[in-house]
């Protein structure tokens, strides 16, 4: 008996808006100008916010911060498509997604400034707190989206993680659960080529991260992560599938971490300036500006105005952050259980008396 082929696979990559700002007319989603401008503005806000956060850290006004610079196009067009009732499960580099999701940016500063209060989102926003243990939070996204499915709701869960996370066991358990139970979960992997100082090639022998989906029986695709439109389209498709009950999708956004891993890292120790420079040429925000400008959807005045507005917005954000009340000692004790235990009450008294 000849050997049987059980399966073959193909994995595709999607690119619509290239680094030079040109859109492939066959793939153009033909979004209204307003939507494109909105996404562009949000990406600019995220970029400016990001730089400000780094500056604040340097000035001792917030603690360690994980910059998102270069990955704005992975996060804004995807998070923006979530609607009321949907869930967002970030890792720790999702400042842009969180802002696009509608969370006041000063809350992010509050979190990175060292106050858990920053993670308490509004009751009508399903934003899970930042999850530091790499790769551990996708399971939560699977569970929450599964719950929605069991109740026959249309809500979905979108979870972000990096290339490093795809090496963690919980990533595999999450993908596997999602596949078995066909949960409406979107796994958005931001392959920014680096897990601190460990390059993407060291995370897996597979040719792409997208193809890992195939092992779990779910669709996976790669997109140019610096391409706002490709990310938009891929996410839209995945969301539609999820809401239609067709289950989870893995989207690998191929991008680059322009900044250091965190404000305490020095990436020049392990990457070349040449590499960084070459990726800067593929900047996700620049190409959108180029494209919009070339197609009468943006001009210099609008750009100037946006810069001014964004700067003013950031000032307000920082001010709002710095006028937040400081955390109280009670906060350390009051949120372990629904009701503090006798032991906790005593320990609190010990500390506060």
């Amino acid at each position, binding site marked *: 008996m000849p050997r049987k082929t059980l399966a073959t696979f193909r994995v595709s990559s999607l690119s619509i808006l290239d680094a030079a700002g040109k859109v492939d007319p066959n793939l153009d989603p033909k979004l209204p100008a307003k939507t494109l401008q909105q996404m562009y503005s949000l990406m600019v806000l995220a970029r400016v916010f990001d730089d400000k956060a780094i500056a604040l850290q340097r000035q001792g006004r917030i603690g360690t911060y994980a910059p998102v610079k270069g990955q704005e196009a992975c996060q804004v067009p995807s998070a923006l498509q979530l609607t009321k009732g949907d869930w967002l499960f970030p890792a720790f580099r999702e400042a842009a997604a969180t802002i696009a999701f509608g969370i006041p940016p000063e809350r992010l500063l509050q979190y990175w400034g060292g106050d858990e209060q920053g*993670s308490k989102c509004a009751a009508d926003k399903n934003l*899970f*707190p930042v999850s530091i*243990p790499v790769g551990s939070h996708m*399971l939560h996204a699977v569970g*929450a989206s599964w719950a929605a499915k069991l109740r026959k709701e249309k809500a979905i869960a979108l979870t972000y993680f990096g290339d490093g996370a795809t090496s963690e066991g*919980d990533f595999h358990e*999450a993908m596997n659960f999602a596949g078995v139970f066909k949960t409406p979960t979107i796994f958005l992997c931001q392959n920014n080529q680096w897990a601190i100082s460990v390059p993407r090639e060291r995370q897996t022998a597979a040719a792409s991260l997208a193809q890992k989906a195939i092992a779990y029986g779910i669709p996976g695709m790669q997109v140019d992560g610096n391409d706002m439109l490709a990310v938009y389209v891929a996410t839209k498709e995945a969301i539609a599938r999820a809401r239609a009950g067709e289950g989870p999708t893995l989207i690998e956004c191929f991008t680059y971490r322009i900044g250091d891993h965190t404000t305490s890292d020095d990436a020049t120790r392990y990457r070349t300036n040449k590499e960084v420079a070459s990726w800067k040429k593929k900047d996700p925000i620049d190409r959108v500006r180029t494209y919009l400008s070339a197609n009468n959807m943006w001009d210099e005045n609008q750009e100037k105005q946006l810069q001014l507005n964004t700067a003013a917005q950031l000032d307000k954000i920082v001010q709002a952050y710095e006028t937040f009340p400081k955390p109280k000692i009670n906060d350390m004790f009051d949120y372990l259980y629904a009701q503090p235990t006798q032991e906790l009450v005593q320990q609190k008294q010990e500390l506060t008396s």
Partner: protein
Amino acid sequence: MTNLTLIQAVNQALQQEMKRDPTVMVLGEDVGKNGGVFRATEGLWQAFGDERVVDTPLAESGIVGVSLGLAVNGFKPVAEIQFDGFLAPAFDQVISHVGRIRNRSRGRFHAQLVIRVPYGGGIHAPEHHSESPETYFVHTPGIKVVIPSTPYDAKGLLLAAIRDPDPVLFFEPKKIYRAFRQEVPETDYTIPIGKARLVKQGHDITVIAWGAQVRTAEQAVVQAKVDADIIDLRTLSPLDTDTVINSVTKTGRCVIVQEAPKTCGLAAEVIARINERALLSLEAPVARVTGFDTVMPLSRLEDSYLPSPERVVKAIKKTMEF
């Protein structure tokens, strides 16, 4: 009212609660069609179907992580980890997330879920099937740890655990799953989490135990012919310190029986609290009869490891004669 074994009481609690509350879900390995390897979930899949009684892939971390997601979006998962030793792969999810989500989100999210685990030795099982890992979870803030020792308590405590807004590790002493029966009311009742049970009242000595070791304590007290307070802790976290202190203040002597390895086991914590609040009532050092600081042996040596009534009698005598 019928006489039920501990495992039957667990089953009854699950049956009744799943009927009463449609958001309660059971998930784990082999819990569905097979009814659980100990038959704890017998009949549930048949009664409640695929979507409420779920056979999961073989992935403990996945089971707990997914339970957290289900819990924050409106369900009350009762997850089963098949054996104590297999809590280890799920440890990260418990301590990094389940115990923390309320604090991390300042109450915006919380984890109302139960993780049921058959635990402890005495059934001559293969490696990793006889562990007593309760201390790791008592040591984790944000988690509650409950261990019943009787069928009546098992039902009442499990119902309380499922209804508790906080995450509960519910350890079921498998050695006594079927060792005895007890009258268990068919009505709805709960036993408060955080309250110990006074098994017997006396004046000469306090003997503290939990799980399968409550029996050992009872047998030892009879053999030693002492007039003892016997306390079944029932909840290890939060600990019912008051009951312990009131008793030790009365008797002045105490022996604690613990199956888990000696060092840093819960007995040490109880003794620390006795030290803090009842030192001047002590007539003798508080003794503990525990497992050893060794790996739980395979079946041939198991009986040498587990606390026995004889070892406890010895400790009682020594404490009485100090």
